[in-house]
């Protein structure tokens, strides 16, 4: 299966949200990374066939998703950035309702709902009204609904927002299990989520694709550019203003900084192995 984004642009009132975006997704988990306003949500909505691009198109196995219509949506699971719920529905009722809209039979809908509520750890409160759910619990309902029709294409816009660490770990496990025969595109601000599960990362900046690559390939670009140095707090403060700093630890009157720099930022600085947060700062600061 191939999901191809072909020269897609979206312009709102003469301001481009995304410009000439091109990439192709096959099986696996793809992370969409970019700062606020980079156009991630716009791109995901276009890929979910919820927004008409100003130019370009999205192709599934060579066919335009707009013309595929129901056939495309039958393969799609989508979790929007701000997942809302009907407050007077229970978690179970909402999932059953969406399952039926996804074309599942009554029996399938019931079975899938039970399995997914168990998977996201909500089966014990499935009969409670959604109005009483916390943000994290609602988000888990959102994740469950996206998985309802066993979709081949899963588009999730900030799925881990509002989840506590345990829930995030559970979610990453679910995604990894699913990724064998699916195309999963997820955006998140939590870089460690992408680091943990994504097979490939798409970096989006100001509406344009900056880089696409495997996490290891992107991290390799930072080899020799990430440094650690321990200095007095005053010296550390000055240095942190001069270079992108991905971490600062103050301990016993000293500051240990993690800096990103093409050259050695300080004679005492030692090169260290880069991580995804370093990469984020390197590309987006």
């Amino acid at each position, binding site marked *: 299966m191939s999901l191809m984004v072909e020269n897609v642009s979206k312009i709102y009132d003469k301001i481009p949200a995304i410009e000439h975006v091109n990439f192709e997704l096959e099986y696996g988990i793809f992370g969409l990374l970019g700062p606020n306003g980079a156009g991630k949500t716009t791109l995901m*909505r276009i890929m*979910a*066939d*919820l*927004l*008409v691009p100003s130019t370009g198109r999205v192709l599934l196995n060579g066919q335009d998703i707009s013309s595929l219509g*129901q056939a495309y*949506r*039958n393969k*799609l*699971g*989508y*979790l*929007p950035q*701000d*997942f*809302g*719920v*009907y*407050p007077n529905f229970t978690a179970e009722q909402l999932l059953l*309702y*969406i399952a*039926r*809209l*996804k*074309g599942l039979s009554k029996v399938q809908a019931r079975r899938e709902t039970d399995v997914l509520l168990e998977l996201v750890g909500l089966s014990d409160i499935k009969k409670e009204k959604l109005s009483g759910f916390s943000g994290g619990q609602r988000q888990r309902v*959102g994740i469950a*609904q996206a998985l309802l*029709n066993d979709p081949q294409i899963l588009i999730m816009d900030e799925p881990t927002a509002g989840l506590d660490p345990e829930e995030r770990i559970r979610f990453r496990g679910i995604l990894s299990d699913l990724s064998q025969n699916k195309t999963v595109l997820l955006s998140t601000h939590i870089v460690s989520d992408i680091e943990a599960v994504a097979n490939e990362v798409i970096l989006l900046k100001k509406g344009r694709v900056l880089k696409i690559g495997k996490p290891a390939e992107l991290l390799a670009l930072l080899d020799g550019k990430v440094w650690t140095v321990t200095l007095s707090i005053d010296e550390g403060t000055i240095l942190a203003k001069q270079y992108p700093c991905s971490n600062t630890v103050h301990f016993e009157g000293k500051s240990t900084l993690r800096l990103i720099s093409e050259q050695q930022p300080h004679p005492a600085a030692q090169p260290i192995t880069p991580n995804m947060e370093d990469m984020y700062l390197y590309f987006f600061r």
Partner: protein
Amino acid sequence: MKRELLRIMKMPLYWLVIGGGMTIRLVFAYFDRLYRQDSFWNSFADFWNKIGAFTMAVLILVVLIRLFSMDREHGVQDVISSTMLGRRNLFLYRLFAVVTGACIGVSVLAAANTILSALFGQGIALNNEWIMAFLTRTGIALCGSVGLSVVAGAICDISKSQPVTLCICGIPFIISIFVNADVVRPFELFWFFRYGFFTELMRGRLLQSMLGFWVIWYSTILVLALAIAIAKRKERKEL
């Protein structure tokens, strides 16, 4: 469609509005029984003129059409639109559910009016003409209610806002009630308000003069509202 209809039927407000309308009718029937026995059955037959029409307008504009705005209201729109049947099919299901909900409302109100009147009117002479008049007016009110529910449903789908639709459709309804039929002339603005926005039909009155014109007028309103709703849905990628 069944699911959407069940959602309507499970709305407490649906039954509250019907209950409210019938409570007013109960009070009137009680006082008619005490003080106006001569016009008791006349009030029964004239139920749709005020209480019935007003109850149905509230039922349609406050309760039923919310089916079209609640997705946007609760931020569920994108999820619904990303499902296989969440676009054209759901729009049709909801339209049918709203129309069916209106038909059920008219039927329940008619039945309740009959039961209330029968309970209170025991011993008061009943004329067959009143029964026929009530049945005829119920049929006309049903047509008016169906028409309003389709147009209001379409407007609500376009605007995705129930309060906006309430204003757009409620204002002509209110104006129609207060416009004196004797002072308006054909093709004046208030003549359109009086007869042109389903109110007259919902009050159980047939538009006897210029019937051909009104058939074309109402057909145009219905087709136009649906056509704009469909065009808007296409634009929003909801069809």
